[in-house]
């Protein structure tokens, strides 16, 4: 039951983009084309799942026994950086087109606050390694859902007449706000069912 509630919570109820404001730079920067958005989403799913598992293990086996929890921020950022490097090498070999399309944003996953955010939130909620991994997957799926829906919306803008002053960021933020309003509706949905 706890797994279901973590997954539903991560994907819908406390969606990273719409409710928790995490990973917005990449969300807005990479959502102009559906293809790029899908690529970024897959990279984020891989990095976020891996990073939350490795970070949770790091916490349990190194930081807690050595009483070094105050170094958590620095330790986590290193773990994430190593993971991003791995994804980068992997993509460069297997999908060079996608690698090129993502450009600067792939190394920027390191500074994607959603990835570090989920690792820190896992600690705050005192999840064990298994729950942390599930929470990482759920958060990443929620983030991917958000960016893919949003990229679909943005592709339609090309066919529309938009006032000059709203072009680009203002309209992106306002539509994100409206979608977030929709996601806010999930907040009460499962309260009775899942405790």
């Amino acid at each position, binding site marked *: 039951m706890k797994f279901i509630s973590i997954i539903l919570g991560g994907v819908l109820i406390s969606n990273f983009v*719409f*409710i*928790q*404001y*995490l*990973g*917005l*730079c990449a969300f*807005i920067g990479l959502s102009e084309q559906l293809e790029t958005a899908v690529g970024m989403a897959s990279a984020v799913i891989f990095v976020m799942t891996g990073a939350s598992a490795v970070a949770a293990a790091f916490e349990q086996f190194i930081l807690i026994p050595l009483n070094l929890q*105050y*170094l*958590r*921020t*620095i330790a986590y*950022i*290193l773990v994430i*950086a190593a993971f991003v490097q791995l994804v980068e090498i992997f993509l460069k070999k297997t999908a060079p087109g996608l690698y090129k399309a993502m450009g600067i944003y792939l*190394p*920027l996953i*390191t*500074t*994607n*606050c959603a990835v*570090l*955010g989920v690792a*820190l*939130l896992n600690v*705050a909620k005192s999840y064990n390694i298994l729950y942390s991994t599930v929470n990482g997957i759920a958060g990443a799926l929620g983030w991917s859902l958000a960016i893919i829906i949003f990229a679909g919306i943005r592709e339609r803008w090309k066919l529309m007449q938009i006032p*000059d*002053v*709203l072009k680009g*960021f*203002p*309209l*992106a*933020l*306002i539509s*994100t*706000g*409206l979608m*977030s*309003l929709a996601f*806010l509706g999930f907040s009460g949905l499962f309260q009775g069912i899942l405790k």
Partner: protein
Amino acid sequence: MNGKRSLLHDFTKGFIEENATFRMVIGMCPTLAVTTSIVNGFWMGVAVIFVLTFSNVLVSALRKVTPDQIRIPIFVILIATPVVIVELMMKAFLPDMYRILGVFVPLIVVNCIIIARSEAFAYRNPVLNSLLDGLGIGMGYTINLMVIGGIREFLGTGKIVLFSLGSFPAKPLFDPMAVMLSSPGGFITLGLLMAVLNILIKRSEARKSAGQQVCHD
């Protein structure tokens, strides 16, 4: 003379010319997440000023011994140091604020503003310039956070609380719109603010070009 003016410019450019939120559109997550009131925005801003100045000075001081290929990981470590300091200080002296800002205090370490200033400015400029750049950009960012926080607080609660001075006005002026305090309110406020800013910029540009045409005639 020239050197002095450039120092002053390094400080002042963070307020308007290179304003982090509105001109460069970076550091969005905390801009939206912690701006539910002026006070929250202020303390987040103070934390960012400290980290940005500290990390700019460190990066700039070490720029000659930093190998080019691995500069980004080095920046991240240099940035993480002041972030941990801020985190521990806040936990000790402002525990309530630390609880409100939550995960966004350690997340300063991945705030694009900090790493962007390291890469674009501190890595190429002397220590004093970098110090002023950090202060300027940080203060500009703090003002943004407080403005957005003020708007959301006023619309969301009907009043504004200014630190220990109490709230103005004492009673809400209208039925508070609670949605402004939750996530959609943040996105929509920032989006509309940017649109208004675009209108203002367009107007001033139109006026300038109209003035130039008069001169040509």
